């Protein structure tokens, strides 16, 4: 039995060495097997109209290992001929960029495919020459949509543990943040290569093995890059975020965040300074503020208070409160931003009266407010198909108790107007507004429209079961905010038919955040928007920004 195994081995050796010996000997004597890798091209990312936002290609850099290279006088001439350069040119580069004897020096960048292959084939004569494959990505819109896209960088330690089983290697480039990260597996190309038998002059005599490289799949986003670009330009360098979305489906039309960055920079060498700047910048340019930034919502939250109060029948829409400009809640005095005198709910929304909503909040109590904030999707991720979404924070009595801190009436009053501990991401605010615009459905925002040929369907929205009459009353208020003479967002909207709610979120010792969240047209909502400006003062700046954006979109026929 065991003897049989030894016989098999002997026969195997006999076959290889005696019968096929001459063949293998001739292969070996010419040292003739070369492997030429074919790098596949990473998938493109396009907008909903098929406009390319990122596309990929492979570029080849030629480097030499200086010590070995110098020992080999022939290789310099040979390489110079292949690269179409003079030997002295190459020597100059080597001298200039010399770091240490074993640090590769790039002598030619972005050479064409043919040259790269020729050098690979002549590896035996050019032992100290290395062909490096550099995946390139082109960003025709430069910084545009950078947070949605993410960037491509050298794989890090944490990612390689996760991805090793999928065939990733230490020097691979992988997506970081955004679509590049979440759809890494889809966009990624499968590398192939060709194994050649070459003769002693480097000519190909036979192909031994071949594996086709396959390009990554293309991803189509739901955004419209023209709208995206226009919004980004309108921000004019101010910090903040914007979300534009379809209220019925949650389809994202634009999603911007500032400051932004240029993803290309992560792919180029000698950019350590720029990248370090991005990583250490106090304004955190790599954070996608639209989904990962958490801010106090300010008066936009009054809509939640109003709906809660109407639903729980604490008041009717006709209920009037008197605003003397300030109010006592518990032992502390709370201010309104103006003196509004007697007004009903509609007027209170229009004027964004704090006193009215302090009173509503005290009638409702913190538990009901937390409950309604939760129903409108605050305090949990919206579920958008982008990585690193923040969940925000909804304060609650229970959470305070757990932390052994007291809850005061003042906290309730603050909660009612969106101040205090409440933290909301812009996408959550947009989703909240979408639920009002579409008559009470909490949609799941999404930004990936199509992968290759596979169309992605919107996720079903959650029905909130709100009374249609209540929604109508609130929408009426939102209309007034923009269109009434005394509305907080009335800056002459013409025929744009916008409805919305402003919010000025106060921040200790700093300029306040400005929000403007709404939809248009108000009779048959097509788009929900949420614009947020970080530390730029009252909400009127955000209102002006939205005004500018939609005016321009109208002019360009994009609305």
């Amino acid at each position, binding site marked *: 039995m065991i003897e049989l195994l030894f016989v098999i081995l002997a026969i*195997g*050796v006999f076959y290889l060495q005696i019968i096929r*010996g*001459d063949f*293998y000997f001739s292969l070996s004597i010419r040292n003739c097997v070369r492997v030429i890798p074919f790098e596949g091209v990473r998938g493109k990312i396009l907008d909903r109209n098929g406009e390319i936002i990122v596309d990929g290609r492979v570029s080849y850099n030629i480097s030499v290992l200086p010590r070995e290279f110098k020992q080999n006088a022939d290789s310099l001439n040979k390489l110079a001929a292949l690269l179409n350069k003079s030997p002295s040119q190459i020597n100059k580069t080597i001298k200039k960029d010399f770091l240490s004897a074993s640090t590769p020096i790039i002598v030619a960048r972005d050479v064409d495919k043919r040259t790269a292959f020729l050098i690979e084939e002549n590896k035996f004569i050019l032992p100290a020459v290395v062909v490096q494959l550099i995946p390139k990505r082109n960003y025709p819109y430069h910084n545009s949509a950078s947070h949605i896209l993410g960037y491509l960088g050298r794989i890090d330690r944490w990612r390689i543990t996760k991805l090793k089983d999928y065939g990733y290697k230490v020097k691979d480039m992988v997506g970081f943040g955004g679509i590049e990260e979440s759809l890494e597996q889809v966009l990624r190309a499968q590398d192939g290569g060709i*194994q050649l038998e070459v003769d002693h002059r480097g000519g190909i005599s036979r192909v031994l*093995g071949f*594996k086709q490289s396959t390009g990554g799949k293309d991803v189509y986003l739901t955004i419209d890059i023209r709208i995206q670009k226009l919004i980004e330009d309108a921000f004019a360098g101010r910090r903040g975020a914007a979300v534009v979305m379809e209220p019925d489906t949650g389809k994202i039309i634009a999603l911007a965040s500032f400051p932004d960055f240029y993803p290309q920079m992560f792919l180029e060498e000698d950019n350590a300074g720029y990248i370090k700047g991005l990583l250490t910048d106090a304004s955190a340019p790599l954070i996608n503020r639209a989904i990962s930034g958490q801010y106090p919502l300010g008066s936009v939250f009054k809509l939640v208070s109003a709906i809660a109060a109407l639903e729980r029948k604490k008041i009717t829409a006709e209920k009037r409160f008197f605003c003397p400009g300030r109010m006592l809640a518990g032992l502390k005095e709370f201010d309104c931003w103006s003196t509004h005198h007697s007004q009903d709910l509609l007027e209170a929304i229009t004027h964004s009266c704090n006193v009215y909503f302090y009173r509503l909040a005290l009638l409702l109590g913190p538990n009901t407010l937390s409950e309604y904030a939760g129903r409108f999707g605050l305090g949990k991720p919206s579920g958008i198909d982008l990585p690193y979404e923040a969940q925000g924070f909804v304060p609650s009595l229970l959470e305070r108790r757990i932390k052994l801190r007291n809850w005061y009436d003042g906290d309730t009053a603050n909660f009612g107007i969106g101040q205090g501990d409440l933290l909301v991401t812009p996408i959550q605010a947009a989703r909240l507004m979408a639920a009002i615009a579409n008559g009470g459905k909490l949609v799941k925002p999404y930004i990936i429209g199509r992968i290759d040929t596979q169309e992605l369907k919107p996720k079903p929205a959650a029905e909130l079961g709100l009374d249609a009459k209540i929604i109508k009353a609130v929408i009426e208020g939102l209309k007034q905010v923009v269109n009434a003479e005394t509305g907080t967002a009335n800056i002459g909207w013409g025929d744009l038919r916008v409805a919305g709610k402003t919010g000025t979120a106060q921040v200790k010792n700093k300029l306040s955040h400005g929000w403007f969240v709404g939809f248009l047209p108000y009779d048959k909502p097509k788009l929900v928007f949420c614009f947020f400006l970080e530390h730029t003062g009252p909400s009127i700046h955000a209102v002006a920004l939205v005004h500018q954006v939609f005016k321009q979109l109208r002019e360009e026929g994009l609305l």
Partner: protein
Amino acid sequence: MKTAKDYLIPIVAFLITSLSLLTLYSAVYIKGPFREGSVFIRQLSWILLGWFAYFIFSRLSYRRLINFIYPFYFLVIFFLLLVLVIGMMRLGAQRWIKLWWFNFQPSEFAKLAVILVLSHYFSQKSLADIRLDVGKFSFGKGIIYPFLLMLIPFGLILKQPDLGTALILLFVFLSMAYFSGVKIRYIALLLAAGAFISPVFWHFLKNYQKDRLMVFLNPNFDPLGAGYTIIQSKIAIGSGRLFGKGWLAGTQGQLNFLPESHTDFIFGIFGEETGFAGALLLLGLYYLLFRQAFTISARTDDNFGKFLAFATGLMFAMQVYINISMTQGLSPVVGLPLPLMSYGGSSMLVNFVFLGILQNINRRSLK
């Protein structure tokens, strides 16, 4: 009376390790074989350490090992677990633990532990009956219990992942069960159950292991990865022809065309430099070694020694077969060293311990 035949084991081992040193020297001589930390120097010191171990174990009565079998077995399992835990904390899979200046590889010691434990288990006897208990055992005691003894290290080694060593354990277990007289239908039942669940097993294989199996079926499946090694290895062996290219004259191994040429694929360089004549010589030496193990097994009255010698011979033969057939492209590349030839400290040491025990069984059987 002592004859040359009684010293067959050390003589053959000496010859094979000498060939190993010559081949390793050739594999690394371009890089300088005597430089500090070189593979050649390390292998030389492991072989010397191995002879030391051989000397001790061939003089220490192997029956005295029985007291240490289970503690040793559990120690090995502890180290196998440790490897997995450390592996998880570091970048994924690994097979060894760094101990002082060498990489300690517990899976090699697991072979020793499992063979000792199984030999002991199958050689149990009751006082009333001179026959072995195994024949009377129920299904559970006869096969399931020893199977579990093998399965624990098997699973841990497979998880590392080290498919080759795990397979060796399985082979050894099955042949020992058969050899010791466990009822055939029990073994058949176990095999049937195994065949039934093996498709499930496919899912537990790492992607690269699947790839390797696919490459075995079709080397062009992955010409850049595992397929490349096989093609290069075949070129190296084949180009040796009848008498080889001569010592230090191989080109495939020395110019780094053949990856892992000093570990799993050492037969590639050896075949290239010594040709068909050398390959037959090496195969012959291995054959003598395993033949001697079986002779000792047949000659010994003590059942523990009988099984131990049988399993040792079988394990050597299986490893030689799997390794050499994979370098020839006749079986999948599973990553298994060639005993006494491949570079690797743990493996060298364990093999010498095996040979020491074997020689000791031989001495006692002749008394």
